[in-house]
């Protein structure tokens, strides 16, 4: 088989690059990460005419080859490194017919690198409505390229694109604008110093900030010593380069493009008038937020109940049909409840990502950023922090990754630091079970359910703490950075079903797989620790329990319970729990809750799973976790262990504590130091402990 053809998809954000990628690869795509960084790497396979297969790489969207973020840097690193295994044989630049002028800037830069380049003009279906006409032949001639006019909405033009890709060898690699005209002397000196290198490549290496990542520069190392121009002079030259490129583009488009501006006045301005209105804009945004919460916490409860029941039935089935033994117990008591704890999140995560991708695809998200910027800035955040804070209600990990497009480092850092306060979906099962135990199911003022009021209050506490601590951090942190803020306001578009569906499937999958591994591992470890113990007291637990109780006076059921309790107490986990009990006792917890809290430092959702595992070890009745928890007795004070005081204390502890290893790992990656995640862990958890302590001591 011949070598695979490498194709890189490059383009500005909002040009429909991802739809083109989806059309080319279909479901033959996979999403991973670039090695060492958390930038998403999307690749897929496309079948070309004559049996050739192309490897398509969907690069992060960028406005130019001057990187201002980690995502954009990936594009440059790839295009500068000929030895990269993904180095493209052909670059496909995706542009949007309505923003052709701006999109062509990036195109001319890539042409300058002598890479064979095809220009895709997307959204061709809009041309007629917008009265845009293009002279494709002339454009091809002036830009020295081949053009594919496509519409991913109508699925037209892709055959031609595939044909062009497979004939990439006939493409011209001549640049259409030569960057060296901006400073001939400087470029001449460059050429003399590095005669073997591509001139524009040298220029890019010189002008890029190198802080982003390790750029494999090889023989270009010495280039850093060549920086004979001052920083502000280099920026002046970059500006000049931009002007020169636009002059060329304007000249070309004058000959080839015509737009009837009257026809272009349209839906956008009418929608903007309402959606960015100073009153209606905010009302609509909050209505949409309400709808999202409704979907996540109400609509998704139906499929979640189904999943819950299915897993309970599965565990029961394994227990009854497989031969009794340690292995069966591991599956029925360790693995199945553990897996159930992950799978149950699918409906919520899917709903959340569905809404977020709908909002982004339609172009509405930028309007929210626009509306919220001024308000968020009062608290040291940016309008762009809204997206992480909203997605933080699903999971802090994608939320922290979504902070990347915040240009201002201080605002971005604060957003990263406070996002874990928002109530993520992992806290939800903990909240739900504790609320149902300690808060009476009553109506307040005839309409509000007390339990759901408490749940809503917890969400508000989470959001309020995030905002308040952002405000504090803004005062405390002494970081000087300029308030650069540029956001494109894209055209409104009807979201493409295919894009939204792929996005939801892929995001849900990666969440489940990522969190799933941790939860599964922990539940197995817990099960092993809970069903084994050191010394005779564990092995003799059964006899001891029987001996202590007057056998015969108790039914077998009661006896079994006591045996299980005895066993658990002398298991490894029992000893560990006893060791930490003094720390959690002032908060009103016993050692079992202590164990659950400790294990949930890996991930919060483990709390319920841990209690489920601890309580289900040795019990074979089909009893719900909730009933078992309600039956627990406080070993010192007597009375139910889960009462109002300890329940509220637990709720508050979970609202504030930093209990998610994956989040800490992401924060480390995004801030490039352990300083911030460690501070987050210590401060958030310390605060949680104090608040829980005060709450318990006041309520008891």
């Amino acid at each position, binding site marked *: 088989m011949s070598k695979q053809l490498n194709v890189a998809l490059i383009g500005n954000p909002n040009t429909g690059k991802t739809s083109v990628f989806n059309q080319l690869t279909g479901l033959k795509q996979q999403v991973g990460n670039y090695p060492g960084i958390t930038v998403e790497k999307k690749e897929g396979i496309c079948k070309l005419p004559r049996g050739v297969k192309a490897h398509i790489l969907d690069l992060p969207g960028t*406005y130019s080859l001057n990187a201002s973020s980690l995502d954009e840097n990936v594009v440059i690193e790839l295009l500068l490194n000929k030895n990269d295994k993904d180095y493209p044989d052909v670059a496909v630049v995706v542009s949007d017919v309505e923003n052709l*002028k701006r999109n062509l800037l990036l195109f001319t830069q890539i042409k300058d690198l002598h890479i064979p380049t095809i220009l895709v003009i997307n959204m061709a279906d809009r041309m007629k409505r917008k009265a845009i006409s293009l002279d494709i032949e002339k454009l091809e001639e002036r830009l020295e390229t081949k053009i594919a006019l496509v519409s991913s909405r109508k699925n037209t033009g892709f055959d031609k694109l595939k044909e062009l890709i497979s004939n990439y060898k006939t493409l011209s690699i001549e640049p259409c604008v030569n960057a060296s005209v901006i400073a001939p002397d400087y470029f001449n000196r460059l050429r003399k110093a590095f005669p073997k290198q591509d001139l524009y490549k040298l220029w890019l290496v010189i002008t890029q900030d190198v802080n982003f990542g390790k750029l494999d520069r090889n023989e270009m190392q010495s280039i850093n010593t060549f920086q004979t121009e001052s920083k502000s002079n280099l*920026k002046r030259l970059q500006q000049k380069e931009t002007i020169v490129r636009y002059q060329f583009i304007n000249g070309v488009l004058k000959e080839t493009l015509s737009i009837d501006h009257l026809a272009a006045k349209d839906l956008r301005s009418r929608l903007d008038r309402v959606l*960015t209105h100073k009153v209606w804009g905010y009302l609509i945004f909050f209505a949409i937020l309400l709808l999202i919460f409704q979907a996540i916490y109400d609509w998704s409860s139906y499929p979640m109940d189904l999943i819950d029941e299915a897993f309970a039935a599965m565990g029961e089935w394994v227990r009854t049909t497989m031969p009794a033994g340690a292995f069966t117990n591991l599956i029925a008591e360790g693995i199945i409840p553990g897996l159930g704890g992950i799978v149950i999140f699918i409906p919520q995560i899917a709903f959340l990502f569905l809404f977020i991708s709908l909002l982004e695809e339609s172009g509405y998200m930028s309007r929210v950023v626009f509306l919220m910027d001024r308000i968020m800035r009062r608290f040291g955040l940016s309008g762009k922090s809204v997206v992480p804070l909203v997605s933080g209600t699903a999971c802090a990990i994608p939320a922290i990754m979504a902070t990347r497009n915040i240009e201002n480092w201080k605002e971005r850092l604060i957003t990263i630091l406070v996002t874990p306060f928002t109530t993520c979906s992992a806290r939800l099962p903990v909240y739900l079970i504790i609320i149902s135990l300690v808060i009476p199911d009553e109506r307040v003022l005839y309409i509000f359910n007390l339990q759901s009021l408490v749940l809503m209050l917890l969400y508000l506490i989470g959001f309020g703490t995030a905002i308040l601590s952002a405000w504090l951090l803004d005062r405390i942190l002494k970081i000087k950075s300029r308030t*650069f*803020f540029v*956001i*494109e306001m894209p055209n409104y578009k009807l979201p493409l079903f295919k894009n939204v569906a792929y996005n939801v499937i892929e995001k849900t999958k990666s969440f489940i797989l990522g969190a799933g591994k941790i939860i599964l591992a922990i539940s197995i470890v817990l099960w092993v620790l809970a069903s084994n113990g050191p010394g005779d007291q564990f092995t003799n637990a059964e006899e001891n329990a029987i001996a202590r109780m007057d056998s015969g006076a108790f039914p077998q059921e009661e006896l079994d319970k006591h045996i299980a309790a005895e066993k658990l107490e002398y298991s490894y986990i029992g000893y560990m729990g006893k060791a930490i009990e003094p720390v959690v006792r002032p908060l009103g917890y016993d050692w079992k809750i202590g164990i659950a809290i400790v294990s949930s430092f890996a991930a919060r959702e483990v709390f319920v799973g841990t209690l489920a595992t601890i309580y289900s070890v040795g019990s074979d009745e089909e009893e719900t976790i909730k009933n078992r928890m309600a039956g627990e007795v406080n070993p010192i004070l007597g009375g139910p262990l889960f009462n109002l005081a300890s329940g509220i204390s637990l709720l508050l502890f979970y609202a504030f504590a930093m209990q998610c290893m994956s989040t800490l790992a992401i924060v480390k990656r995004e801030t490039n130091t352990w300083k911030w995640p460690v501070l987050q862990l210590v401060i958030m958890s310390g605060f949680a402990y104090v608040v829980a302590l005060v709450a318990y001591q006041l309520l008891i």
Partner: protein
Amino acid sequence: MSLKRNQLLTSRQALEDLNLDYRVKSFHICCISFTFALFKFNLNKLTTSLDLLKRGEKAIIVEFTLDMVPLKLLEMGCLPGNEVELVQIAPFKDPMYLNINGSHLAIRKETASHITVEKLSQ
């Protein structure tokens, strides 16, 4: 703007054509200088910074403080000579939603204050 310049020329022409007596002449000179002053005043008013535009107003970008304006903004079309329209302002006049040369984008008032523009009369 061009209309005013024409008026100015024609009035000066008229003055030369009609050989009027001194008093009338001086009156005319007064008028002319007044018009001139008005014109100058207007010119000053036309050049302003981008953050002072009102909703719906259009202007031409004249120059900007390079160090205070991110390169990304230039790449999106914010370059001298290009037309800019203020599409919408958020409450507290910040940020500003602009249409620069066909690119729709939002920037903060702070950045906008470093961009000098020449207002286009409606």
